[in-house]
């Protein structure tokens, strides 16, 4: 039997506000964004923090949405599934995503993440502008701006992990911290 309490307890201890596991659809994104907006309104969150969290949520969820297909092709529908969580801590929100990735794609993604993490605020601004102006627009839309934008808006490093599942796939975890705006 499923141990619901175990899952509940884990979510409780990790201060999870919202969690979802499954196929990421366009309708789901609309609902999650609506729910989180309402939650932050109810918690009377500062408009500035609300906007940052909302912006990062959009980018993270759309990243998941656009990359859902990547791990589906080789191992059936089992992998057409991802996890998304948002947790609230003292002074910050954490947005956590997890999805399967082909091992052969890890290197490229890791290089991009490390590059973004190596840049300071001004460098990120320049990098963003150069990718915006010169970068190829992929059919899926983003064109590699998502991670740069997240790093710029949060002012935090992107925390990530690749957990090897087998010789074909790994599980990619991304944790984004959004610091709450302090009232002065």
């Amino acid at each position, binding site marked *: 039997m499923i141990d619901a309490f175990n899952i509940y307890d884990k979510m409780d201890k990790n201060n999870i506000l919202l969690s979802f596991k499954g196929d990421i659809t*366009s309708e789901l*994104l*609309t609902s999650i*964004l*609506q729910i989180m907006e309402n939650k932050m309104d109810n918690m009377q969150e500062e*408009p*500035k923090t609300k*906007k*940052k969290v*909302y*912006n990062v949520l*959009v*980018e993270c969820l*759309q990243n998941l*949405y*656009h990359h859902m297909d990547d791990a589906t092709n080789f191992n059936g529908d089992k992998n057409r599934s991802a996890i998304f969580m948002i947790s609230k801590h003292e002074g910050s929100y954490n947005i956590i995503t997890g999805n399967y990735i082909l091992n052969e794609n890890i290197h490229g993604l890791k290089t991009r993440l490390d590059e973004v993490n190596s840049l300071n605020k001004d460098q990120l*601004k320049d990098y*963003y*502008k150069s990718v*915006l*102006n010169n*970068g190829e*627009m992929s*059919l*899926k*839309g*983003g*064109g590699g*701006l*998502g991670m*740069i*934008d997240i790093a710029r*808006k949060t002012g935090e490093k992107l925390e990530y992990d690749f957990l090897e599942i087998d010789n074909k796939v790994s599980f990619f975890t991304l944790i984004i911290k959004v610091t709450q705006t302090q009232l002065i």
Partner: protein
Amino acid sequence: MEKYAIEGTPKTPTISFDIQGGLLEIKGRSIPENSIEFYKPLVDALDKYSSASQPTTTVNIQLEYFNTSSSKCILDVFKKLEAIHKGGSAVTINWHYEEDDEDMLEAGEDYQAIINIPFKMVQVAE
């Protein structure tokens, strides 16, 4: 076609383009998954407008949120406007941002640095 209008949705902005008045307005949220598809009709409308533009063209952008997928499309719209500006219609872009929304102000400044059209940064109350 004298007017081009699109109603806003939770993920896409309200767009109105008054061709005879030379006034383009984009307001609301722009966070669609597929931005290219959403912005293509506007880019096409601007293409048509460029051959018969008004002496002045005013552009009001008032976005609450936009995703990175939209940011490329918005740049495409601005590039069309830049060509219209060079072609003889004096274009002004009024970039609105909410008080305290530094990210939105910075986003406007990013475009201002890339596009050769006069930008006005307009602060609006929350």
